[in-house]
């Protein structure tokens, strides 16, 4: 799509238009994550809205939510802390353990299984400047060593002065297996400035979660309806809910951009 970018920079234009998009019944959206950290372990349940509405997603406040560590048999029945937010307080993720999420909303129930992959350390976070057609961008760079066994999947999240970017950025070890990896994180939703404190989370995720976020990353790209038809990525939740349930490790490092 870079060619189009170059060519279109000479002749094209972008404007905002209105389209009459269909309305649908609100869908249940479940985001569940259990990590090897003490914080960030929670299940959030919201609903989808029509396209022309504001980005306010109604929380589902009457859900029965439980997470069970299938390896130890321990169950945590969750209690809502904020509307739609159900923190996991009794369990902390352990690599190799298998977890089950169950959510019941009225008559309907949803479930998912997730296994936490082995932890990979994030050795360093640095930055680089990236020359693109539309100027120079500062990018964060993660350095880590991929384990010798194939089948590792990573998700990277940028935090700019403490605020998480909305870019989905995932990588598979398909082409880098077993190597020391220096990964530039392309993130066009934030503009990194000198003086910023940048933190990067590296999550070791399962294949199913990788496929889910890789699908979301494609939906974030430009000119998507010029390419492969955009589709909802397949999540790992049964029962017809949108979203995912992930058990992952988190490694975080920080860099200050001079």
């Amino acid at each position: 799509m870079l060619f189009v970018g170059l060519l279109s920079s000479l002749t094209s234009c972008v404007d905002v238009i209105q389209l009459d998009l269909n309305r649908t019944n609100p869908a249940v959206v479940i985001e569940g994550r259990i990590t090897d950290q003490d914080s960030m372990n929670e299940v959030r349940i919201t609903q989808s809205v029509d396209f022309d509405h504001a980005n306010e997603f109604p929380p589902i406040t009457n859900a029965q939510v439980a997470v069970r560590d299938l390896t130890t048999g321990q169950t945590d029945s969750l209690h809502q802390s904020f509307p739609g937010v159900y923190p996991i307080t009794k369990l902390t993720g352990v690599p190799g353990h298998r977890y089950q999420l169950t959510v019941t909303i009225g008559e309907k129930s949803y479930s998912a299984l997730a296994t936490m992959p082995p932890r990979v350390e994030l050795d360093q976070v640095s930055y680089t400047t990236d020359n693109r057609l539309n100027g120079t961008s500062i990018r964060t760079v993660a350095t880590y060593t991929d384990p010798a066994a194939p089948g590792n999947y990573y998700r990277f999240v940028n935090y700019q002065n403490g605020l998480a970017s909305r870019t989905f950025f995932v990588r598979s070890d398909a082409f880098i297996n077993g190597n020391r990896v220096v990964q530039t994180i392309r993130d066009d939703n934030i503009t990194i400035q000198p003086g910023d404190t940048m933190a990067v989370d590296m999550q070791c995720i399962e294949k199913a979660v990788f496929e889910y976020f890789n699908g979301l990353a494609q939906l974030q790209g430009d000119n998507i309806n010029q390419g492969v038809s955009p589709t909802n990525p397949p999540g790992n939740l049964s029962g017809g809910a949108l979203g995912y349930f992930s058990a992952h490790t988190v490694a975080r490092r920080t860099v200050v951009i001079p």
Partner: protein
Amino acid sequence: MFSGKRLLFFIGCLLMATLALGQTRYTLSGSVKDAQSGEVLIGATIRVQQQPVIGTISNEYGFYSLTLPEGTYTIQVSLVSYQPVTKTVTLTTSTHLDVTLAESATQLQEVLVRSQAANEHITNPTMGVERLSMSAIKQIPVLLGERDPLKVLQLLPGIKSAGEGNSGFHVRGGNSDQNLILLDEAPVYNASHLLGFFSTFNADAIKDLAIYKGGMPAQYGGRLSSVLDVKMNDGNNQTFHAGGGIGLIASRLYAEGPLVKDKSSFLITGRRTYADAFLKLSNDPDINRNTLYFYDLNAKLNYTLSTKDRLFVSGYFGRDKFGLGDLFNIDWGNATGTLRWNHLLNEKLFSNTSLIYSQYDYQVGIQNGSNDFSLTSSIRDYNLKQEFSYFPNPAHALRFGANVIHHTLTPRNRTATSESSSINTTREKSRYSVESAVFVSDKWQLSPRISLEYGLRLTSFAVLGGSEYYTLDANKTIVDTLSYPAGQIVTHYVNPEPRLSAAYVLSDNTSIKASYTRNVQNLHLISNSGTSTPNDRWLQSSNVIRPEIADQVALGFFRNISDNRYEFSVETYYKALQNQIDYKNGADFQFTDALETQLLFGKGRAYGLELLLRKKTGALTGWLGYTLSRTERQIEGINNGRWYPARQDRTHDVSIVGVYQLSKRWTLSATFVYNTGNAVSFPTGKYRIDNAVVFNYTERNGYRMPAYHRLDLGATVQFAKKKNFESDLAFGLYNAYGRANPYAINFEQDVYDPNQTEIQRITLFKMVPSITYNFRF
């Protein structure tokens, strides 16, 4: 299953049947050539005045053959935009007669109206075929003034553009990879430059162009939807000429002439774009460090070895280069070569032997400091084709032959290009296959009113070992990797492809035609984009991917109006397609080498109605085309197994083309197109994941792009001829009224108000003027 033995038997019977006829007769044969250049002329009509039913057409090498009882005949030879020639021949023995035709000046066009060829449209049984002359192509305005045969084709009913300014096309609902594009018999795997904005066909090099939308004769095979048969000029064997053109984004040069007069000739043409020259003008180093250009080279040599033998060598080489500073570069291109030997075994039997090479490859280089790597991929064919044309008597014209192609498909090879790169160098093994075919067809004038063209093509596709194949489970996960030694047959597909078309002439100016065609396709383009991109990958049929099969029936009504001045036709078609390919939900091409795991297979159907009213002569020429059509797929795993519109499905498609000869010097032209927008997937809602807004896509291709329409204008002024120097200046205006046709529609979180989402329309070309200077001496 249809066996090869049975086919041979069938061929034998057919030959016997036709041989039994036509003794005590003599054969008149020879070539039809252009008087000025010595180029052989394709498709000239040869008629016998004393026997109006009898006639033939010169073949792709200008050869014709007519067998008649002893006697004296008046032979008329005619071809559009040439002055017809009449010759008297007394046949007391088989006779060789070469005919030269002179190009007609404009004022002579009235004569053409009355030529016998004018109702060819009515009598030829072949349906769904369109021939375009280069002179028509040169008058029609196009984007940035780059004359492009493929863009002119898209103005015909049943042929649709793949996108704004794109040279890719869809024929009768087919995908863009279902077109067999041949340049001097060599398949061109990626016929586009600069992401499809230009085609690989340089108008200077091209003699003739025919497209078959259905009812393709049995000598063609390998793709489902269409055959685009492009023939290069042979080169002038009389005098030396050179010419060229200077345009806004590209310049062209060509030279042609005799090596030995009347015996041999050469042609060489070249073209290069200089879009990147504009980038260099920028002061911004982020822009002026980029490269963006392509070039094409066509060359041809042809030797007349004897009255019975001709030898041709032709080649094409084209390359695109694109670089984004020192970060990213990609270059890609086609190379083809054809060595052909025409041999006249006797006055009724014409042989053509071709050895053909064809290659497409691309290389991508990515340098981002830490993960530098390059990707290379290619497809390469060696192709041997033997074909005979046999003219036993005036009622029959037979063609039969065989064809063997060896394919090598090299998937993406990844190479680390710096010491510190974390990318592993991988060599994926190439996949090999042998595609072979035997074919026979006969054009049979059954009675003065009924003519038939029938034939059979038997194709075999043998997937050869030497690389790995996969066994997939229902979730498309690899459960087993199968390794076969080189040379071993992994799978073998044999398919008979019957072809039949018939014409029934109701009156001098009216006929009805019907056809049935089966086509099989064993090479499949896996594109990660709707438009053609250089890194699209070809896959061959395998244990997972089955051959695509299309059965098409078509029915047509043809009528010429007011003394053949207007041609009118209605054609309807219905196509049933098997083993069609689409992507699974959330398909990934970036991290997946085994593409089979990302694909779904199902069936398709396409049907439509095409209307065409054409005016071929007079000061105003052009056509009016309309297509009503539907193209659908049904694939398990997409839209719950319901029929859904294919991306290229467009209900209405209108095109109007007009060329007006204002004076001897000025020609004006205009084209107008209107079509229903493509089927696309738009979101029906949105939700939140982490802190991003994600769009909810509930249905594939459930929406439409806005309707597309555009008017292009052109004007050409011919300068006075000085000695042998001719020149003209062509002006064009693309999208004259500046319609904002969306190239893409994006759904975005509002940059200024993150609590809102917005729909953005990207428009590429509004009112793009062009100017091109062409010369010839």
